[in-house]
């Protein structure tokens, strides 16, 4: 663990990224305390520019506090990002692991199934899913997970294909361990490095997707999100630039920070693979 941190620390960008991510997480956790009122509440006069008294980042066209919106939006972004990354990683590990371990026909079938998802324009599929299921935070998470697992499945399959030929896996077969045991206790821990890196990048991707969905009005209408803030103020950008700029910056900085963290994890977890996973 100490060694891991040593290698991570060597990547300066990744350390800065980690600070930013920790900051965003803190804001998300503390949002209800820092801004106890609902972010939807009409708190002041509309169209207040940034640096106005009481409203550091100004207000929007209905007089809602933009800073409060950002803080509460961080919650949605992180919940959606983490939950859908977890879900897609789980699906990816199951599909890729089984395909890679068993090979042959099972592999063929699962990979054709994966390709099916890769050939459908994924963002449109996400919109369709959210539209059919009614936009709630759950359906958004589900939609994002469903469109983003194929790359993980492919990665896991590749790792499994090479690991299952290793002698320690053969030894596990010979001593009579069951297939599931071998997959989860022998092979998976050895494949975890690249998977963790990929998952951390998935979080960033999911935040972007959630932003895009909310921008188009397919977000959870109950919850303030960054994408919604940009979407609702986009036609006022010439009159009131701050309304879309700050949530845009929030998305940009968070996603960048997560990518930096992913890069640092790559360096720390797979010193040899470094810089391949990103592609």
């Amino acid at each position, binding site marked *: 663990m100490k060694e891991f941190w040593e290698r991570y620390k060597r990547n300066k960008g990744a350390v800065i990224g980690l600070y930013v991510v920790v900051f965003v997480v803190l804001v998300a956790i503390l949002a209800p305390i820092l801004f106890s009122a609902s972010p939807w509440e009409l708190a002041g006069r509309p169209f207040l520019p940034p640096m106005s008294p009481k409203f550091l980042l100004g207000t929007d066209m209905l007089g809602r506090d933009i800073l409060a919106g950002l803080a509460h939006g961080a919650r949605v972004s992180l919940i959606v990002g983490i939950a859908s990354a977890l879900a897609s990683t789980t699906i990816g590990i199951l599909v890729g692991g089984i395909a890679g371990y068993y090979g042959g026909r099972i592999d063929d079938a699962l990979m054709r199934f994966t390709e099916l998802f890769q050939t459908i324009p994924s963002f449109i599929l996400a919109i369709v899913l959210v539209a059919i299921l009614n936009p709630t935070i759950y359906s958004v998470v589900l939609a994002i997970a469903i469109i983003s697992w194929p790359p993980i499945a492919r990665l896991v399959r590749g790792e499994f294909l090479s690991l299952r030929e290793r002698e*320690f896996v053969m030894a596990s077969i010979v001593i009579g361990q069951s297939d599931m045991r071998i997959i989860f206790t022998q092979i998976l821990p*050895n494949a975890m490095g690249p998977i963790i890196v990929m998952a951390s990048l998935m979080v960033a991707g999911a935040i972007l997707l959630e932003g895009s969905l909310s921008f188009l009005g397919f977000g959870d209408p109950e919850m303030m999100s960054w994408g919604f803030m940009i979407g609702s103020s986009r036609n006022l950008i010439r009159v009131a630039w701050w309304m879309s700029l700050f949530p845009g910056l929030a998305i940009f900085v968070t996603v960048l920070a997560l990518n930096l963290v992913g890069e640092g994890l790559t360096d720390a977890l797979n010193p040899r693979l470094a810089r391949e996973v990103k592609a």
Partner: protein
Amino acid sequence: MVQDEGLAEPDKLLDIRALTVALPPEADRPHAVEDITLTLNRGEVLCIVGESGSGKSITAHAVMGLLPEPHVRIVGGEIGFEGQAITTLKPAAWRDLRGRRMGMIFQEPMTALNPVMRIGSQIDEVLSAHIKISSSERQKRVVELLDSVGLPDPAQLVDTYPFRLSGGQRQRVMIAAALALEPALLIADEPTTALDVTTQMQILHLIKDLQKKMDMGVLFITHDFGVVTEIADRVAVMQEGRIVEIGTLQQVLNDPQHDYTKRLIAAVPKLREEARSHENEKVVLSTRGVCKTFSQAGGIITQRRVVNAVKNVDLSIRAGETLGLVGESGSGKSTFARCLVRLVDPDSGEIWFANQNIVQLSARSLRRLRPRIQMIFQDPYASLNPRRKVGRIIAEGPIAQGTSRRTAMENGRELLLLVGLDPAVADRYPHEFSGGQRQRIGIARALALKPEVLIADEPVSALDVSVQAQILELLADLKERLNLALIFITHDLRVAAQVCDSIAVMRLGEIVEMGLKADVFRRPKHEYTRALLDAIPGKKLLLE
């Protein structure tokens, strides 16, 4: 080079004096080689023998100016070559010397050639870099060179790519390239280690012939005392960066002075005649007509390729017997072993064990039977899960068979003791152990299930000779105590000669000869067996 002749002592080609090479600070010892002094005369073969980590390769690289500086660098002493001190040469002067006056061949012929460059151009490069002759003359010279290293049809070969050549042929190409400019010194770093025995012998003969013809000095690095007896005029023995003994082949072999040399020579496997007959024991495992073919599906351009890995193998082994399955790479011996434990499903044939045909067992009944046939693997670095503690690795088998975790872990500690390790190491991870220790752990894992048949797939081929001897002793001892039937798969006839009771020789998927060890070694019937026996390096050592 004429001007140098006067300065040099006439015969002394290479003169290493008090050479010390430093390792980077985080290495396990300060110096890779320490204070070594040796000379090599023209027309002489000097073998440097040592186990891995002894510094023998570093010595060779220092002479070639190929040390990975600045991490590993010369800190003391000097190297004289043809009367000239070469340690202080500028890079350009080094380049001129390398290739023209010194040639080098490496261990791994598969990676030493550029895969996307024609054979001819790779040798031509050496010529064009050093001498100015017309390209047509160079081409003629390349063909001559390929001819001189005994490659068939050299005129055609010039235009082919390395992937069409076998390992032995590639090594011949490497030799041709190294000798292109008739260097005075050839450095050979384990040039035959990656080759099959019969090919190894051919390459050794080739090097010896060319060395005589060209009156070269050869610095030959090897870990194998058998190889030494085939080629050396003089021998230097290295241990942990120092030369512990140097002398003529006869001196070192017949009258070794240093303890380490004695140990190394003693560790060379010897034919043990006292093979026990097991005819009265019951047959525990037998196979009938086992076949396995691998096929590569053909594409639009490529043809469908079928490889008969195992063809109609009939075999039986009795309790307490050690059966050696011997063959060169590609003979199908490993595939056959994997069929026996159903890591590979045979296409046809029967494998009988405990009155059941294993080939037809369902996955579930197979799993119940698995503990009784266990396997030891070749690569001690790949055969243990790097993320599991040793105690757990050993206990996993019994746990999978339903033993409680606690009992399994406790038995695991006893097993560690049985294979000669401290039970306290159960809490460590595999990377903390040496190759030999890991192989012991692998053996403990197999024994944890109390098997009746143990299949050892090249269990010592990745180990140094002295460690190899210890592991072989351990296996023999355990086998005796537990009355195991042991199927010992190896490419090394010397090892088989030492540990086995009977021997089966495989070639291209078939067993060509099978019999008691003494018969096979003293009175081989099949010509392939004879060829294999003739190719054993240091045969004298083995049969004495």
